[in-house]
């Protein structure tokens, strides 16, 4: 599905997307949070983007770990440790690998989810990024089981991620800042679930 060169392309595409969606993600964070999700990720992925040239020729594990460490040390807030841990742990799982097939990709996502759940002490249905991550993982797992091609698998993932993000509008958050506004959060889409959906979309675009 992707060699380490393509992984670098994916990371670059995600970085550009985060820059592009900076204002939108920040706006989503306004009514239920503290208006900084896009700013945070924008700052983090700008730093990631600068590291990319230095990562040429490295294995996928090293690339993902470096992305994670960079996010941890530049994003801050809640999303920094969460996305940071997700990439770092995924990198550990891919240590030494030069190529990732669709099964590896599912491992990456699963590892990332576990990292977020552990760090964030959260599960699905709490109106966080997990509400995009988990259902999209399940959709992709199902698609693989059904023997779908990588492209279709990712399409199914992206679709499920967005509907998971959409679903956060119906949830009263119990984790993250959105939990402070309680019922007022109803009708608002979680910024983290949204940023995750954008990321998956970029992966699908670059690999598809």
């Amino acid at each position, binding site marked *: 599905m992707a060699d380490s060169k393509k992984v670098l392309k994916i990371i670059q595409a995600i970085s550009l997307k985060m820059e592009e969606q900076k204002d939108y993600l920040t706006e989503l964070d306004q009514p239920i949070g503290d208006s900084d999700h896009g700013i945070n990720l924008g700052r983090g992925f700008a730093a990631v983007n600068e590291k990319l040239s230095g990562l040429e020729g490295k294995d996928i594990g090293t690339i993902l770990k470096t992305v994670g460490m960079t996010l941890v*040390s530049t994003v*801050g807030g809640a999303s920094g440790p969460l996305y940071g841990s997700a990439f770092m742990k995924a990198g550990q799982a891919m240590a030494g690998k030069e190529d990732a097939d669709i099964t590896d990709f599912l491992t990456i996502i699963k590892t990332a989810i576990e990292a977020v759940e552990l760090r964030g002490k959260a599960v699905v249905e709490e109106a966080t990024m997990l509400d995009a991550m988990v259902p999209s993982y399940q959709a992709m797992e199902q698609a693989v089981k059904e023997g779908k091609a990588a492209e279709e698998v990712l399409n199914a993932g992206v679709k499920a991620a967005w509907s998971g993000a959409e679903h956060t509008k119906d949830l009263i958050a119990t984790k993250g800042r959105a939990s402070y506004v309680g019922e007022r959060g109803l009708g608002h889409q979680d910024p983290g679930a949204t940023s995750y959906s954008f990321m998956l979309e970029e992966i699908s675009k670059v690999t598809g």
Partner: protein
Amino acid sequence: MKKFINDTVLVEEQMILGMVKAYPRHLKKLDCGNVVVRAEKKEGKVALISGGGSGHEPAHGGFVGTGMLDAAVAGPVFTSPTPDQIYEGIKAVATDAGVLMIVKNYTGDVMNFEMAAEMAEMEGITVKHVVTNDDVAVKDSLYTIGRRGVAGTVFVHKIAGAMAETGADLDKVQATAQKVIDNVRTMGAAIEPCTVPAAGKPGFTLSDDEMEIGIGIHGEPGTHREPVKKADEIVDMLLSQILEDIDYSGSEVAVMINGAGGTPLMELYIINNRVSDVLAEKGIRIHKTFVGEYMTSIEMQGFSISLLRLDDEMKQLLDAAADTPAWN
């Protein structure tokens, strides 16, 4: 957005520099980032470190100095600092007596401080932490992240800081900090929002006759919105929620009327006038009152009331001399 700044990306650094230049006798900035430490490292005592996003000035750098904090780590505005920043702060002030981190209860703060502690422990530094959660606006529950840490955190800095200064060990300092956390409650309201420089727009908007009740300290909206009321009525509303949470009757308290940044002292005094009267009516004795800006939300027009139930030990530690830019 109109602000006395130069560039939204330079806000945090120039602010920290300006602060350190104002108080060179108290403060020093680490070269590696927005970390403020005591001008002279204090050995032989537990080192206290706190911090969080910027935008809460004078917190937290203003509370670095004798009798309070040893280091304050400042993230971007309203965004938790990163683990490596916090770790630099820990390294700079750690002593053999260990390090206590005073963390406000926000997912981001807790996770970043925890990761920093993990890094420090790998280097053989003993790090413990407490999590402040004084905001009664948010209902505490097993299934949620729980209450936020707000202005009451400053009492933790002061009292745990005074205990650390006596040479008490890490467990004792941590227990003292926890005792303050267990006895302090806060609630706030706002009539005008604030604007994060990098966002350029206010965190929420209010019409001419609305206020937000139960605001946090990150410019985020509160728990609900109401028509503006008289100051005394707002005080009564906030106080009753605080007094429901802890039974303060018959006890002696410290009071903090904390301005959110844009509220004039005039109004804070008017607020305190009512707070004083209500507590007197209820037979709650006031040991000391603090009116001013301790934990702000940039230029938000709002305030919070904190009540700390005191015992003799906390009273003595609260009154102990401190020498920091914002508390002395």
